């Protein structure tokens, strides 16, 4: 594992755990629920993924169903 990758992973973990220590109350999550924070509609996202599958060899880690929200 390269030094750069280790630094990136450590920074990501630190950011995630730091964020976990500062809860955001439910009443302050309005901006997270706005339309512009939502992922693309499923059928359009599925078509994009289909095109990428055809033109590329890399598989997966390309966005989850809740990747843009973090709340339901």
């Amino acid at each position: 594992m390269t030094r750069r990758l280790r630094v990136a992973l450590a920074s990501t973990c630190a950011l995630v755990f730091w964020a976990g220590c500062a809860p955001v109350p439910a009443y302050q999550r309005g901006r997270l629920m706005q339309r512009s924070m939502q992922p693309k509609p499923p059928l359009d996202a599925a078509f994009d993924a289909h095109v990428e599958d055809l033109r590329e060899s890399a598989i997966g880690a390309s966005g989850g169903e809740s990747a843009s929200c973090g709340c339901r």
Partner: protein
Amino acid sequence: MRVSLTALALGAIGTGCGATVSHRASARVHVYDDPRITVVSPTVEEQAQIADTKVTAHYGVDAVSGATQALTVDAVSSATRFSEVRQDAGLRAAHAFSAETELSGGYNLSREPDDLVHVPSLRLTQELFERMVRAAVGYQLVVESIGRTGDPLFREHALGHRVDVEWTQIATRSLTLTVLGTGTATECSAGIGCFANPYRYVGIARGAAHIALPERHPDQRFTGAGALRLSWAFAGSSALQAGSRWAVDSWSVAAYTADAAVVTELFDDRLLARAEARATLQSRASFYDERYQGSGGVLPAYRTADAELSGLRNARAQLFLDWAWGPVHIVGQLGRMWNYYPGFPALPTRHAWIAGGGLDANF
């Protein structure tokens, strides 16, 4: 029609039980067009929420037509006209056991004249830490049977396993971070190996002569990918959604992808405009060669004429619009994709237009 019947059945069941039922019906037509092929893909999807259970059914078709350069057995490159239809259908049920826990299971079937793929799947989603975190783990089994039109004796098989993990964290009141990971393992018949094209031949120089052999890939492939994504709400009703992905596989293919989308709400939030950009760099597979050589009685065990295994530079720009008109959303998108294959002289570029449109209705 099948999806409509499913919707009616789901609605009837829900109503009969006295449960609240809500529906979301979607229809799309997407088009992919490059100088070699045109794909028209109509798709319909119906989602019914019945109490704590959500059931989704979809059906879609890829109608593919065009001409492909095929290296035939006499090693002469020729253009072959073709058209075919791929059908794809799926059913998924997700049940919320509590406000924090959801388990879903699904089954997807993809069928072409010479290819059949079954994909059963499971996914568990759990919210943690006062719902600050959404963690998910998913598993897919991929069972594929590959044939060759006009050759009833040709039958190859592939068995794949795929695991996805996801960790989405609310970082601040306007920022979420997501870490994604995917691992796959695929075992294939040894005849042509994994993901090889049963119609494609590879030219091999043998002294002064040239011969053509069927494309053949290794019969195992393992892949791993990880990504970091963020969604940041800024300037009122606008957001930035961006991500970075690294992927590697056991064929020495390594890929890096970066993407970003600026999303904004206009006209009293009735119009959603989404401008997207995405770029990928991908290295060649270890067994890819621009000119395969055979010396003496030894021929290359693995050989490919797949441009996607030769190394790739890819970029895409796309505009997506979503107009909300009461419970109905009218959506449309238009994009351009640029593909460069610097290590594949027969096809150095392959650029494409991507377009689509349709409706979503909530009732």
